[in-house]
């Protein structure tokens, strides 16, 4: 029987920018995600969301002041994440 820890699939690619990147001390990292489709004996859990990851990261500030992008498109903080997604937390934008 395979080790349950092997029941993982493509991780979420996490990215931070600007002030958030400096606060965290990293710009990119992988976030392991379990794929319940390939571990049928495990009870399904709530899908992983950007909000859950943000709360786990424990960065300063509220998610209300941060925008979320999934696969380089703006997204809601409660959008379910899929294996292999690129998730970015974006501090307040100031272009132009």
């Amino acid at each position, binding site marked *: 029987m395979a080790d349950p820890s092997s029941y993982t699939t493509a991780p979420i690619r996490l990215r931070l*920018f*600007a002030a958030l990147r400096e606060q965290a001390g990293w710009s990119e990292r992988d976030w392991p995600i379990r794929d319940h489709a390939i571990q049928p004996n495990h009870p399904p859990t709530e899908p992983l969301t950007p909000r859950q990851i943000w709360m786990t990261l424990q960065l300063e500030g509220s998610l209300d002041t941060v925008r979320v992008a999934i696969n380089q*498109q703006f997204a809601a903080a409660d959008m379910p994440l899929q294996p292999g997604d690129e998730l970015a937390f*974006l*501090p307040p*934008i*100031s*272009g*132009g």
Partner: protein
Amino acid sequence: MERTPELNLAMPNLAIALHTERFDPMARLGAWHKLLEQRTSNSAAESLFIGRVRPTASDDGIALEALELEHYPGMTEAQLEALARASCQHHGVSSCLIEHRIGRVLPDEAIVLVAIGADRRGPAQRCCQELLEALKHEAPFWKREWRTDGSRRWLSGNTPL
């Protein structure tokens, strides 16, 4: 040497460029006009905006050494194109050029150039303003002020309109 703006083939007369080094907005505009002329796509009305780095910090007036512009590669280009397409379609304009700096920008250097061509001044001016505001708030750029007193600060928003 200034390069010729590259047209976006999916939308005629749309060009977007990010510059890692200083660019001359008037030279870029000249190249853009030449390209439109070749396509016989010059417009009766054109609205322009050129944004440059202020010499002082946004809050306390301390002299600026530079303004750093960070961005999200890939998403920035896609977002600029989506914003441009939406504004151009909304206002029915005929051409759109966006040029934007990234990296370390010195005081008085250009940060952004937006040029909108249309048949009438109204759509050209409205589209130019709408697109500029959109890219300021919806394209993933971040500014950090490097001040001459040695301090640095990420800006958390844009200057008032």
